[in-house]
């Protein structure tokens, strides 16, 4: 590829720039992870130093004494529930919008895409009041259901063209074999659209895993707290335990970083799909 490009000059500059950008991106993250291996007195004495000696105590403490595991569990349940809900509801709606001809179809599509135009967070106060009146606060549903709703517009926008692109001939062939539209959705569309489903699923999962404002309002029960709430609480509860905060924050990053490394292609692919034009 490189050889077919007209411009090969500027390579050292390019590498220097790439390195600089990458360094700025991850230096603070590395600092937090490494800082977790120091003691608070070490950090106070020399804020920018390296661990000397390296101590495992902070990480051990967070993993054994804090609510880290229960919060990670809550985050996982909420994120998986959200992902499942978004994928199922989004696929059904996008399938209809892509493969049925009916009056009001474009209006329905516009109706969903309107959700992309304004911040769903603006309605967080009445949303909280509504969930409170429905007696849903302090349950997983209080986070899962609104998050499914927030993610539906982008999901439908990504899925619809994908489903439209499935050749008509396939559907005709399936019809001749006696498979109706619903059977086509289940037996042909579902397996064929796996890449797009993975993309929207990953986007919904990450959004849910990182969500803060909605859980902050609707989950006052400490036992239901998700990781972002846990990190925030830990840091304001033990303000003087800098090393502990660093360790807790690092551990909270690990699942997101792992998950991201595994699914980077899908996330970037999804964005790529989103700006294709």
């Amino acid at each position, binding site marked *: 590829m490189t050889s077919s490009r007209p411009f090969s000059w500027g390579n050292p500059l390019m590498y220097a720039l790439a390195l600089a950008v990458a360094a700025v991106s991850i230096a603070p993250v590395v600092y937090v992870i490494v800082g977790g291996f120091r003691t608070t007195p070490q950090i106070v004495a020399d804020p920018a130093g390296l661990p000397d000696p390296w101590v495992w105590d902070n990480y051990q403490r967070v993993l054994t004494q804090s609510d880290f595991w229960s919060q990670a569990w809550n985050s996982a349940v909420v994120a998986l529930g959200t992902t499942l809900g978004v994928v199922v509801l989004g696929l059904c*709606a996008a399938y209809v919008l892509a493969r049925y001809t009916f009056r009001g179809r474009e209006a*329905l599509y516009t109706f969903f895409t309107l959700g992309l135009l304004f911040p769903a967070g603006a*309605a967080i*106060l009445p949303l909280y009041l509504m969930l409170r009146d429905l007696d849903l606060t302090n349950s997983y549903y209080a986070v899962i259901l609104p998050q499914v709703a927030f993610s*539906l517009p982008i999901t439908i926008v990504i899925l619809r063209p994908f489903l439209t692109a499935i050749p008509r001939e396939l559907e005709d062939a399936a019809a001749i074999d006696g498979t109706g539209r619903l059977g086509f959705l289940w037996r042909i569309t579902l397996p064929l659209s796996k890449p797009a489903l993975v993309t929207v699923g990953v986007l919904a999962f990450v959004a849910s895993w990182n969500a*803060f404002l909605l859980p902050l309002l609707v989950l006052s029960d400490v036992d239901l707290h998700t990781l*972002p709430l846990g990190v925030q609480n830990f840091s304001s509860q033990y303000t003087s335990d800098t090393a502990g*905060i660093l360790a807790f924050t690092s551990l909270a*990053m690990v699942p997101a970083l792992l998950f991201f490394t595994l699914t980077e292609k899908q996330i970037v692919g999804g964005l790529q799909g989103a*700006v294709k034009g």
Partner: protein
Amino acid sequence: MTRTLDLAGGASAPPAGPRRVRRSSTRAAETRRKWYEIIGLTTPAIAVYVMFVLVPMGFAVYYSLYRWRGVGPPTDFVGFDNYVLAFQDPIFLDALRNNAVIVVGSLLVQGPIALAVALLLNRRFRGRTVFRLLVFVPYVLAEVTVGIMWKLILTDGGTMDALLRSIGLGGLVQAWLADLDVVIWTLLFVLTWKYVGFAIILLLAGLSNVPHELTEAAAIDGAGWWQIQRHVTLPLLGPTIRIWMFLSMIGSLQVFDVIWVTSVPAVRSLGASATMATYMVDNGFFARLWGYGNAVAVILFVISFVAALLFQRFLLRRDIQGALTGRAN
């Protein structure tokens, strides 16, 4: 824009797909069946979307007209007083100004950086995958994690100060998060760090869609690197840039998490680091001024919506439809 939905008009619907229809009664049955499928498949999504996005929005307008502490039904009708109060509160005006700083600052700082980096890196090079992975890390981390991380680094006498002193720039040291005049710029820096990677990846994705043939043809015609970027690549990148600007603007208007976690409540309550969203949650949820908080929510919503529509009208035009929905249509 929102025409009413006609989901019930089954009788007048156009005939279904390519099926071979033999008798008119089968056709009617088929049409009915199609409508059952349409309604069955879309109702769950519509219900969740209406219930958790649209209905709360309506309630916000209703509550905003009352003075209400959130207990029992609202009875103390005050008309538009809450809105007037908001625009008379200097803290809210500070929040508005801060949102403006973040919207404009994000566009002016992240845009050029991301564009420069993306243009220079728009070629295959060894380690490109790893680079992409690293640059994307800040975007994937939770806002809360990022906020606490920077709070620790920027604390008085913390790592940032030590680093600046060690390279002889001790004179630059500030009370990053406590100085009322400095804190908004510190927060803008943290937001830039968090989101510039997203802009870079988006632009790189857009660049990978620019056909080689065009840049090669320009090169054969004797155009230099700059000329090619300026006259071939940039115009083709237009839709991607505008979509990024749009997403950045909407995100900046509703920014909450990073601000909430990074800035100290005392500084926020003085307005120095408040945004519309933090002001809304502080006053509505925590101070239990529900009517007032909902008025702020409506203001935030109207500002975002108008900004989005204006942007669509004048800049985005059909980008969203054309670009977001791709070539398949």
